[in-house]
């Protein structure tokens, strides 16, 4: 039979192609923790993404995808050709939906390396047809130099969202500038060492507060929304590969105590990053449970102050936000390797009482915080159901204009410096020293709202807290104090000052003449800005945030908004927006167009959504005390962790 020429040519080719396909079929390792450039793009050199201290614990984990119809039967981790001892456990959790059937996740928990230098880890995954998948990742163990005197106490002050302009604006409002020089400096200005910090996260040039704080607490990058962990391929919020944080490491190796102080809800990203491990910054129930179930034991958490009482009350208690969806039960391998409790889905848990049973003195307001005995060893303060009220509203309350704090039901909330002072009193009782994280949380939140006056006052409040830390450092020279930020928020910039008095500005704010009046005839730039002058009241805050010729702030990362330059009597909206002057809306507004509308000065934004966003600009860091000289120049945010640990473990020559 004559074979058609075309078929005769096609068949060998098809057989060859089939052979190629068959020969190249193999399982693939699609994710390897800890992450590395080696695994992602095949580059083995610096910069090393994952870095750890000697004996700092972390999890190894791989996600393996099988060929169709096959299954993954096992994984082995090797280092330098040798199998790493320890249990390799296959995850039983539901996997991400985009993984093919038969995919598997294998982990080796709580691994640690001692030798400084770069190490390569190999994973070998076996498929049911005996085919192998191999992948490599690398990491650096950052050595500690024995250099002299150790730092006993570490204070990390984080101004959430606080960029360079936020500091400058606070200085101008609080202290003023005249004839070119600041009349006096903020406390943070007076720290002897400064550096610029690069803030990008593991998955973006723009970070959020979770990895933005986790870099300081673990020395490692993280994905946005995640802290204390590397990303994985399960929806479970608490089974991710973990990284041991600063509190856990120093409690384990040196017996130090841990304190967390914030003006936000205590489950929020920045405090959460110092006391929990999760891929979901929103899991308030689980994060707060983990504060007690893990951080108190493994990190020696002794002070926890802030808002967020709603997570500490049983779900059936009015005001509680506890829920099963935001809680966790840990996988057995995490429990065993990290020696932590499993947790439980327990929305009815009385976490507040459990803290008290664990020996914590509880302070629900400023009065009880002040009254906490001098020999208090463990202190829990929950001053609001969620975030505490911002500095402006708290100060207004103390000045007799308590409408806002009274409306919220918490009229006696402490200022951040009062909280910091008390935290230092409690922690300093520990002879082995402590780590204290102090967060000025609402600098960021009000910058998101583009509420200039509120974030400026929050920055001033933060500086008063820093002053408490600096005074402590001066009395205790074996203390290192760092002032930094997780990122910049809103692209805030000092653009000038008002050309007119406050009275005239108020008239212009309701004149509805738009940019011709509120921009062209109001914004004084260059020498027309002069020196805005704010009078400081005896309580240390401005008498008014609406003086004549007030300083003006612009935003580079803003959304559509109206601006009239006046202090908003309430966040985000005015009481008395004359409805007739609100423009008809044809779509859901993307910005807070409801505010300051009467002046008609619309500023269109660069970003979508409803709130201003974070930016990628480097942020300033200031350091004082023992070990401060270790900082300087341009640093990655993860470098800060290793410098702090050098000071705490290896010491410094100063």
């Amino acid at each position, binding site marked *: 039979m004559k074979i058609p020429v075309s078929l005769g040519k096609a068949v060998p080719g098809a057989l060859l192609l089939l052979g190629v396909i068959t020969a190249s079929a193999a399982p693939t390792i699609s994710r390897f923790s800890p992450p590395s450039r080696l695994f992602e793009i095949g580059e083995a050199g610096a910069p090393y993404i994952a870095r750890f201290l000697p004996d700092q614990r972390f999890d190894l984990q791989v996600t393996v995808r099988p060929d169709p119809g096959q299954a993954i039967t096992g994984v082995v981790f090797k280092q330098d050709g040798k199998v790493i001892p320890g249990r390799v456990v296959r995850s039983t959790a539901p996997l991400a939906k985009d993984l093919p059937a038969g995919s598997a996740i294998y982990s080796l928990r709580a691994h640690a390396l001692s030798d400084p230098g770069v190490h390569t880890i190999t994973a070998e995954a076996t498929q049911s047809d005996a085919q192998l998948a191999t992948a490599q990742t690398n990491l650096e163990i950052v050595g500690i130099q024995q250099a002299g005197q150790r730092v006993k106490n570490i204070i990390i002050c984080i101004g959430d969202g606080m960029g360079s302009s936020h500091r400058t604006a606070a200085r101008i409002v609080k202290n003023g500038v005249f004839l070119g020089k600041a009349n006096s400096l903020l406390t943070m200005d007076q720290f002897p060492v400064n550096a610029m910090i690069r803030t990008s996260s593991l998955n973006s040039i723009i970070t959020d507060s979770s990895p933005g704080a986790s870099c300081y607490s673990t020395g490692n990058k993280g994905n946005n929304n995640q802290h204390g962990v590397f990303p994985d391929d399960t929806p479970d919020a608490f089974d991710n590969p973990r990284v041991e944080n600063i509190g856990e490491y120093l409690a384990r190796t040196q017996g130090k105590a841990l304190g967390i102080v914030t003006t936000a809800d205590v489950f929020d990203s920045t405090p959460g990053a110092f006391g929990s491990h999760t891929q979901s910054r*929103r899991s308030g129930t689980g994060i707060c449970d983990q504060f007690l179930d893990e951080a108190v034991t493994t990190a020696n958490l002794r002070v926890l102050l802030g808002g967020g009482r709603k997570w500490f009350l049983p779900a059936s208690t009015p005001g509680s936000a506890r829920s099963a969806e935001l809680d966790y039960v840990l996988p057995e391998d995490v429990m065993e390797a990290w020696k932590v409790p499993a947790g439980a889905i327990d929305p009815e848990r009385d976490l507040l009482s459990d803290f008290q049973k664990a020996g914590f003195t509880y302070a629900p307001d400023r009065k009880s915080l002040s009254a906490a005995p001098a020999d208090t060893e463990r202190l829990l303060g929950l001053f609001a159901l969620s975030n505490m009220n911002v500095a402006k509203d708290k100060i207004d309350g103390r000045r007799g204009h308590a409408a806002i704090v009274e409306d919220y039901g918490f009229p006696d909330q402490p200022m951040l410096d009062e909280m910091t002072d008390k935290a230092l009193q409690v922690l300093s009782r520990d002879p082995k020293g402590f780590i204290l994280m102090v967060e000025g949380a609402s600098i960021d939140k009000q910058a998101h709202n583009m509420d200039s006056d509120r974030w400026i006052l929050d920055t001033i409040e933060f500086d008063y807290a820093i002053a408490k830390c600096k005074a402590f450092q001066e009395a205790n020279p074996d203390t290192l104090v760092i002032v930094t930020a997780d990122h910049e928020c809103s692209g805030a910039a000092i653009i000038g000052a008002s050309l007119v008095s406050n009275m005239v500005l108020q008239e212009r704010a309701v004149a509805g003449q738009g940019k011709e009046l509120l921009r062209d005839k109001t914004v004084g730039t260059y020498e027309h800005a002069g020196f805005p002058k704010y009078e400081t009241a005896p309580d240390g805050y401005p008498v008014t945030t609406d003086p004549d010729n007030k300083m003006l702030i612009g935003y580079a990362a803003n959304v559509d908004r109206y601006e009239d330059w006046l202090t908003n009597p309430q966040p985000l909206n005015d009481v008395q927006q004359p409805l*007739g002057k*609100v423009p008809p809306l044809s779509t*859901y507004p993307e910005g807070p167009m409801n505010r300051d509308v009467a002046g008609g000065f619309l500023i269109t934004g660069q970003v979508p959504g409803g709130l201003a966003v974070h930016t990628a600009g480097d942020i300033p860091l200031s350091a004082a005390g023992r070990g401060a000289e270790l900082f300087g120049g341009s640093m990655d945010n993860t470098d800060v962790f290793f410098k702090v640990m050098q000071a705490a473990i290896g010491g410094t020559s100063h």
Partner: protein
Amino acid sequence: MSFTAFYRSFLKFQLPRCAGVFPVILGFSGLVSSVYAQDARRPQPSPEQSQPSQWEIIPQSKTAQEKLALKKVDLPPLPEDVEELDFRDFFVTPVGDRGLTLTERLRSLDGRRVRLVGYMVYEDLTRCNSCVTPRTLGGRPVPAWMEATVPGRMMLTSRPAAVSHFHYGLADDLPPQTVFVTVPDKIGQLVPYTPGPMVITGILSVGSHKEMDGRTSLVRLILALPDELSATAQKSAPVVSSR
């Protein structure tokens, strides 16, 4: 501005139909004292029904506490079957050392028709990649806005507030006295934001309830439809009450 001009300009504030979404008017007048869909042909009040301006702007230059202030005016007469409710009636304040204590007044109004003056919470609709809200509904992906808010629902507070699942999650600045309002005409749909104080009337529901966005509501209200309002209320003048 005269009251007539104000009233007419207010009635122009409405959302045109867009992509099949019916416009919603969140009313501030007696004619529009609940939220529902309507079109631009709704009858306008005649000039003789309007009243002289009931509010004036009082500039204050002495303090930074208020930019402007409004003279307090009265709300329209209360329909017979409606109780007036103030946010300050919700809980015992100051809050004690644990949770909230509901007042007897609030408890007594559970299931009753009430009227409140408040502000709609601004909900940022930035797509939220790690939010609690479901990504699918009935097997289909949810629209992006549904990742950030709950369909058919708005929140009402005594003071203007905003939330953002993307930026803040549940670390929010909402006051405890937040009412979760179901808008019957917007079931399954986005309730568009409307600024400014508004009068809301509906059936009150008191007790803890888990919302789709992970929040826990303590006080809820099912908004009354216009036909359910008494004729007396519908003829009343719009008002603003200063706080």
